[in-house]
Every structure is written in structure tokens, then in C-alpha cells.
């Protein structure tokens, strides 16, 4: 009996099964904030995100998984979302640029960008990550000093499927 149990245990194989792991890569876009922007106040009538003016440029990272599936559309502000009460007009300027890329070929995005009003469009023709920064400047009417307080403006960063 002992011998037959020993022989049977030698013949027993562990139960094995192959479990597959499957996955698919779909066209997806992720936008992340790499750096929050802040306004510097170089002169009494001006707020600017430009580092030379004491500001910080906001930086956004776009990650796309599939090439040529999305357009990055970034709109710089033309009004404050919150501010002290303002009695005069504000002159807004702004621009958006490519600051860093994960693939060398993406450096062509900057030359190929299109600007419509205050919106800059980039055709994301390659898969990978692209960093964009947006400069924003607001000058208060007739060079008046801006009232004291906190000022907030919104950059709209969109990733639109083609």
C-alpha cells in the first residue's frame, strides 16, 4: 500500500492552466498641470506671468497614447475670474508655446501651430508627451494702478479628438 501511494504521488501532476492577460491601447488624452502660473506685478498697472515681470508661466502636459488623434487647443485669459472691483478696461495679451517634448519630432508643433483669436491650436501628430506654457498679461486702462487684492484668471486647456 505504501509503495502504491508513493508511486501515485510521483505520477500526480500539479494542475496548470495558462491565464492570458489581454489589453488594448485606445486613443486617449491626459492633461496634467506641471506648474501653476502666478502673476507678477512689475508696474502698478500691469499683471504678467512672464518670469522677467516676476510671474510664473503655467505649464501643462498633454499625454496622447495614439498619434494623430487629438488637437491641443489652449486659450489664454481675456478676463479675470475673480478680482477686486475694476472700473476701467483691461487690455489682455497672451500666447502659448511648446516648452518640452518627449519625442524629437514634436518640436515641429511650435512652427505648425495656428492662432485664432486668443486660442492656440496644436495638431498632436505624434504619440507621447508635450509640455505647453501660456503667457498672460493684463494692463489696466490708461495706466491706472490696479486696485489691491487678489486676481485670478483661467487658462482653458482642451484636448479635442479629431
Amino acid at each position: 500500500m505504501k509503495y502504491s501511494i508513493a508511486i501515485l504521488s510521483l505520477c500526480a501532476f500539479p494542475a496548470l492552466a495558462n491565464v492570458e492577460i489581454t489589453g488594448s491601447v485606445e486613443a486617449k488624452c491626459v492633461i496634467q498641470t506641471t506648474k501653476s502660473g502666478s502673476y507678477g506685478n512689475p508696474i502698478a498697472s500691469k499683471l504678467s506671468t512672464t518670469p522677467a515681470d516676476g510671474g510664473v508661466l503655467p505649464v501643462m502636459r498633454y499625454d496622447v497614447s495614439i498619434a494623430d488623434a487629438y488637437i491641443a487647443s489652449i486659450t489664454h485669459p481675456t478676463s479675470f475670474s475673480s478680482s477686486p472691483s475694476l472700473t476701467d478696461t483691461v487690455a489682455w495679451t497672451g500666447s502659448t508655446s511648446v516648452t518640452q517634448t518627449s519625442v524629437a519630432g514634436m518640436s515641429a508643433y511650435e512652427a505648425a501651430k495656428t492662432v485664432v483669436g486668443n486660442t492656440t491650436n496644436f495638431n498632436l501628430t505624434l504619440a507621447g508627451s508635450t509640455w505647453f506654457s501660456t503667457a498672460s498679461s493684463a494692463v489696466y486702462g490708461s495706466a491706472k494702478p490696479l486696485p489691491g487684492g487678489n486676481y485670478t484668471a483661467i487658462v482653458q486647456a482642451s484636448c479635442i479628438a479629431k
Partner: protein
Amino acid sequence: MTPAYPEVKVSHVKNVIKVEMSLFNSREEIKYYQIDLFDLNWMNIPFSTTYRIMKVEYKEHKAFDVYIRKRDMPEAVYLCTTSKVRKTDQSRTLISSRICSRLDGEPA
């Protein structure tokens, strides 16, 4: 993050189409996202969903369904999720991110 070309299905309601969507929040400073539906000219199109503004924690994945009338489907193009930014007490720029899926199919 949402899929570029979401799956469009028939719903359990007659003449209503269901779009299955998923949203992943990759922004730590954002907790709420708004859902909008637009035509090719970015005009709003009526739709229904459980929450138009929904809470999605950082690194959380949330699935949701959007219901669109069958007669509105030929016009419906962009289904977008837009991050809602919080008021701040500093002089700064805030970044509102919007990801738009296309309902009229993949480009040829």
C-alpha cells in the same frame, strides 16, 4: 482622460442612444468635472446623465453613461469633460482642462 471615440449603444429606452464613457482624474488639485455635449460648431445639445457635475478623486476612474435622443445623434459630435477649478486667494492663473471625445466615429 476620456476615450477619443466612445462606444455608442442602444439604450433600454426607445429612441434613446447610450454612450458609455469613463473618466480618469490625473489632476491632484481637481475634484469635480462637468459633462457637456456639443455639435460641430460647439453649440450645446441636450442630453441626460446621472450627474452633470461629478466628483472624481485624484487617480480615480469613474464610468458613466450619457443618454442622447436618437434624433439629436446626427448633430452630436463632441462629448466633453471639463475640470472645475476652485476659487483661490492668490494672484494666479488657474488651468481648466477639457477633454473632448468624438461621437461621429474615427477619422478615415
